[in-house]
């Protein structure tokens, strides 16, 4: 009380209010972020798995992505699409970093292309697509997953991967050609 009386400029009370506001802001930022993660996490998990080709690495990469994303959480997003693009951008950067790191220093564990080991209901086609997907250069894999799996358009994909639109188109074309062949061959085998 004495501090408030002695504080001719009201700074003490102001500081306390400011601290309270900051604390509230932090709580609401955390709540917003938890909501964001809850909304996108299941989808991101699948996309990260397809991108990395390894079940073991998914948790680490997603955790790293979310930890990077949280401090940069914007106050608001223009749309749901904007929100998704922002989060996918961070997750894909982390996936690419992880894949590049692994290329430099190969993993000790049996991580590579785990999804190849357990064929699903349509073993022929899926197995073929999975093996081609694992063989694709990581830049092509990123483009085909963003466009053909997640459903982003060329512009959004270009912004997420920080590459020109034309590069998106050419990488997508190359990836689709190989995947289509694999899909057709897989179907005829079945």
């Amino acid at each position, binding site marked *: 009380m004495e501090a408030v009386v002695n504080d001719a400029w009201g700074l003490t009370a102001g500081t306390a209010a400011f601290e309270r506001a900051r604390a509230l802001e932090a709580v609401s930022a955390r709540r917003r972020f938890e909501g964001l993660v809850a909304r996108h996490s299941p989808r991101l998990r*699948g996309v990260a798995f397809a991108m990395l080709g390894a079940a073991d*690495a998914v948790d680490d990469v997603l955790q790293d992505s979310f930890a990077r994303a949280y401090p940069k959480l914007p106050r608001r997003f223009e749309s749901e699409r904007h929100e998704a693009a922002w989060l996918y951008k961070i997750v894909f950067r982390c996936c690419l970093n992880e894949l590049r790191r692994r290329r430099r220093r190969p993993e000790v564990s*049996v991580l590579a292309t785990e*999804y190849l080991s357990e064929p699903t209901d349509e073993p022929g086609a899926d197995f073929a697509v999975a093996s081609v997907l694992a063989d694709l250069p990581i830049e092509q894999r990123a483009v085909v997953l963003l466009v053909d799996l997640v459903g982003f358009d060329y512009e959004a994909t270009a912004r997420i991967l920080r590459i020109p639109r034309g590069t998106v188109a050419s990488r997508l074309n190359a990836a*689709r050609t190989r995947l289509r062949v694999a899909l057709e061959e897989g179907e005829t085998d079945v």
Partner: protein
Amino acid sequence: MSDLHDALERIASDAPPAREGFSHELWQVVQARKCRTQFRLRSAMVGFIALGITAGGAAGVFASGDANAGTIVDKTISCRLSSTLTSASFRIDADIKEPPERVGGGFTEQPGDVWVGTDGLMYAGASKLLTPTVGAKPVRSGSYFDETVCGISRSRIALSRAGLPSLGVFSDAGNTQLSDTCSVASNTVLSVRLRVILSKGGTPASAQLAIRGGKRPHPLVFVTWTPTRFTAYAAAACVHS
């Protein structure tokens, strides 16, 4: 194009579920990153100011900070378990923090820890004694890696349960200690990864420890640990000791 979309969807749907404690761990990582960023910013600011005053004073100011604050220690070591017998072994021990006990005139505290080591004395003729090799204790700078016998590996192993059966949750409800001995073939190369999140004071707030062994490393042990609670998973080769 929808066939391709469907095939990709099926691949994505095989993604594994989040590991236990994923969200809790995430907020610890966020907090650790925040602390580290603040520490760096503070150090840089103080450093610049000190540099402005005197170049000699700057070093002293840098040294006064807590370099461990909010750090994540993540290392993988690998060792060859040599033995003249056909099998070698290693031990995995974990405890939770327990209240101080009065012993004689003072108190002794069990701070809780998790560590893995090989005990050469357990098998006659074992050529190496590495106790303990890697571990975490909730004391200041409480993570340690014995690099004299085991080498720091540049390759990582995954921090995941990877299908290992659960040994249960160890908390203050009676079940507080894990002490298992795992047998592996002699000359097995053991990879041990320990990831410790240090709290603001530099003490481990949580740790994850994964052990894999063999040429094509298969999972042997996985422990997610905090000073008050941990969960352990181990292969059938591990028995209570």
